[in-house]
């Protein structure tokens, strides 16, 4: 699986794609493979503010319930409506249609600690 180069990655396997001050957040292929079949996704409601490194919601799978973290501070704009009826979309296309949540970034400095695609892939390989 290719790791897209248009975004940055956290140690906890979220991807962060920044366009202007809008961030799209999702889980990596590696993360969803570890989770196995996703059964339910619940992100914080629109308007919720949070600091860098805080949980913005959770993903439930057959195996476990897992928090989702954002590397920078921001405010929830809205979560992916397609995942409500079809959480399996997260397994099928985690870097694309299976995105989790859109965020208005209030302080993007937290993203500096993230890895680019090469560094993230190297971490997985190591």
């Amino acid at each position, binding site marked *: 699986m290719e790791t897209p180069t248009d975004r940055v990655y956290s140690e906890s396997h979220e991807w962060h794609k920044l366009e202007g001050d809008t961030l799209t957040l999702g889980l990596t292929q590696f993360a969803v*493979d570890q989770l*196995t*079949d996703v*059964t*339910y996704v619940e992100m914080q409601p629109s308007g919720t503010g949070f600091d860098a490194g805080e949980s913005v919601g*959770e993903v*439930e799978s*057959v*195996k*476990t*319930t897992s928090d989702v973290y954002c590397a920078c501070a921001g405010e929830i704009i809205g979560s992916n409506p397609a995942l409500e009826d079809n959480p*399996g979309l997260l*397994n099928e296309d985690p870097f694309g249609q299976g995105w989790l949540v859109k965020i208005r970034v209030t302080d993007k400095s937290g993203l500096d600690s993230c890895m680019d695609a090469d560094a993230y892939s190297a971490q997985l390989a190591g």
Partner: protein
Amino acid sequence: MLKSPLHQFHLDHGAQMVEYAGWEMPIRYAGIREEHEQTRRSGSVFDVSHMGRLSVQGLHAKRLLERACSRRIGTMDKGQCRYSLMCNEGGGVLDDVIVMRQDDDEFLVVVNAANREKIVGRLNAIVSERSLKLKLEDRTEKTAMIAVQGPKVMDLIAGVSSEIPTLKRYRFTVKNLMIMKLIVSRTGYTGENGVEVILPANMVPMAMKLLMKDVDPKDPNAVLKPAGLGSRDTLRLEAGMPLYGHELGEDINALEVGLDFAIHLDKTAEEDGEMFIGQEALIATRDSGGPKRTLVGIELEGKRTPRQGMAIRSGDETIGVVSSGCASPTLGKPIAMGFVQAGRVEPGSGVQVDAERAVLEGKVVPLPFYKAPK
């Protein structure tokens, strides 16, 4: 890590492999839900080679198992399988097992992968203590075990054997197929009709070719597809079957689990040759009014999954704990099994599961959650 004789088959079919009880096993291929639904609709092939297979042969084979097993062994016919527990002295559960009687003094015992060494140790301890004459052999790594489960499985097998589809539930037969000796039993862990097959490890490539010869697992309508441990767990949970480490354990009293059919408290040394280890403790439990907790089924509202260890509540009061939970593909809702204080609930009782992030409303239902249509 131990590798199953089907390891290459799993890789060839795109399995996601995980560590399970010291074995590298497939958790899923196409997806856990898809494999679950395939099993309920048609048929699936599960590699269960990680399960322990222990052969007991000799003069005192029956006596050993009578001592180790909660269920009566001496009344078994040749060709019969019996589900039983093995208990510790306090009446807790060491393991649940299938005993197969191959001859008067010859048995095969199928145990859980995680408990294999413990059970071998227990059986050897009884052999020493009683000075029993028998041969105990761990055949796990020389053999493979494959479960073929689903409503269309017996029709498929009828194409290669006229005898196997006539086997009654919990009976087995030994088949010579070309140069292979197969033990085929009408048993399983999914709630569906089907068989489990034990065969020599070196015969696996040929056997899998034969089993899958008219089957293309890529065809959406394939009668049989490979399925992993993920769906095996959701299938057994819908079927209300206990799993060691969840509904069974050394600190769980055997009478709490609703398996009384497999616990013969009337075994005697005179009639049966042995009482079983744990029998006296379990008689004391029964005579003091029964176990303090019982295993129940719970159906829940919403989409969150109940997990092992979550509290079961009645209003503000904690009355039990979840032992297993999943989002049931067949019922389309979350389900759980759990232990609750005896006498506190009955089918229809409202209960809540504390999922930390949310409280899940539910009601107690009879087990199993799912029964295959006849």
